[in-house]
């Protein structure tokens, strides 16, 4: 049996449970109409017509997402290196140090340009 089959079995159980739970709530809960409770919750004041100026949000989050991709790719390169470290030898260590050094340079650049500041 493939080692991935048990994961699918657990996935199936968890998915069935989630569906069942959401379904139960829809069936068993009462339905009482109310104008106020259909509105978006904003601590009792009149809700803004659409969330945060029409669904817009600070561009800062995009920057975090892009920085995440840079460092996540670094992680993706480091993981197989770490697993195979003992059989790769000194050459791999030197290469990895060079690689981390280049990423660190990018990191220092981002920091100096204020990319890590959160106002």
């Amino acid at each position, binding site marked *: *049996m493939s*080692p*991935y*089959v*048990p*994961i699918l*079995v*657990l*996935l199936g*159980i*968890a*998915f069935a*449970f*989630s569906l069942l739970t*959401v379904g*139960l*709530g*829809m069936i*068993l*809960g*009462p*339905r009482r109409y109310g104008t106020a409770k*259909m*509105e*978006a*919750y*904003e601590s009792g004041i009149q*809700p803004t017509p*659409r*969330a*945060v100026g029409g*669904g817009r*949000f600070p561009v800062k*989050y995009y920057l*975090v997402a892009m920085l*995440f991709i840079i*460092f*996540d790719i670094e*992680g993706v390169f*480091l*993981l197989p290196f*770490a*697993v195979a*470290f*003992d*059989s790769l030898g*000194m050459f791999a*260590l030197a290469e*990895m*140090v060079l690689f*981390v*050094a280049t*990423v*660190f340079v990018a*990191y*220092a*650049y981002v920091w*100096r340009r204020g990319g*890590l500041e*959160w106002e």
Partner: protein
Amino acid sequence: MTMLAENPVADFSDDTIWVVLGKALFIFVFLVVGTILMIWAERRVVARMQSRPGPNRFGPFGLLQPLADGVKLILKEDITPRAVDRVVFVVAPIISGTAAFLAFSVIPFGPEARIPFTDIRTPLQLTDLPIALLFILAAAAVGVYGIVLGGWSSGSTYPLLGGLRSSAQVISYEIAMALALVSVFLYSGSMSTSAIVDAQASGGTAQLFGMTLDLPSWHAITLLPSFVIYCIAMVGETNRAPFDLPEAEGELVGGYHTEYSSTKFLLFFLAEYVNMFTVSAIATTLFLGGWRAPFPLSLWDGANHGWWPMLWFVLKVAIFMFCFIWLRGTLPRLRYDQFMALGWKWLIPAALGWTLVVAGLRATQQFESVSTQKVLIGVAAVIAALLVVVLFIDWLVSPEERRQPRQAAEPQAVDPFAGGYPVPPMPGQRLARTSGPVLVAQQVPAAGQDTTDEEQDSQPGEEARRG
């Protein structure tokens, strides 16, 4: 030291589909019951920390309170506000609730054991992969979809901001977490959970004053900085206090699940607690020797056989879960910029630097041609080169500031009553006066310009009358 097997140590070749189904159901029940107990324990322990009794009416010690809450949630009305995206609004909690369980499929509860009332022997672990830890990271990342989609589809301000905060938080701390894991992989030579537990079985020996001493084997001791970084990152990853900014009540009401009610809310709640169990189980497996018995117990031969290891595993996870409650009862919430600075400016460079040190140490142990001296010289050279590069970048990015050193700016004299009501000074400002009549619609005096009391007294009276 010998080269460790890259593939899982545990053998799953004899498992039939019924055994797999049984183990999967066990994991599911374990997590759901664990969540119920954890909610009870959290309320009781936090209550005790705050000198109040906590829930104590339903069942012995209030043990049935979480069940009563669950039944109540199911019987509540399932409100779908008008502004929501109807499909995504339902799909988001299902994604969260489903993805939370996945990571546990590769967590080892114990070694091979006999299932009671049968002759079947099987590892107490659902399955194991050569890339098990990579799978866990992937499963954790899928859970973010539930949060960000739930926040977005609500069509409301607080959930949107809460969902964004939460996803930014999880991805920020995932980097530090993955980097902390790298040193564990370096030392165990595998990403498979059963192989990592196996690598912590014995830590080798050292000669000290003619005696042979057993070295500690847990990665929490040999790789202490990684363990510390992982523990901080796992609290940030699960959105728990003091990093529970997505649910900061004072700022965002409930965060991404503000608009959710009834069982959809229940699924988000369940997912949060299951995620706590997951990160605790990973910490146990990677750093605390997994299901292996702790030191005094490990002297007993039977401690690492049969069903006993599951007890050690659950106890170790329970310690982490208690620490989650303890943190919540003790620490105030961080501000968002402090939180992001901690992740990006402290944890990531610390994890990167520590990974380099571990790689150097491992090289001195593994490769005989490498002496400690050479590695130290190499590390020093790398650090020196990095410093030169960073200084160069510093010069490159701010050439103008370098050429013209910033002069200490003369503090600006500001009339605090210029806007019609008194305001405190901003940083770098000097108050022109601290008392006197209120001005209305008067220009702020320019910096350095002297204003006499007569000028100020004559004008404001007239303008106030006009205003």
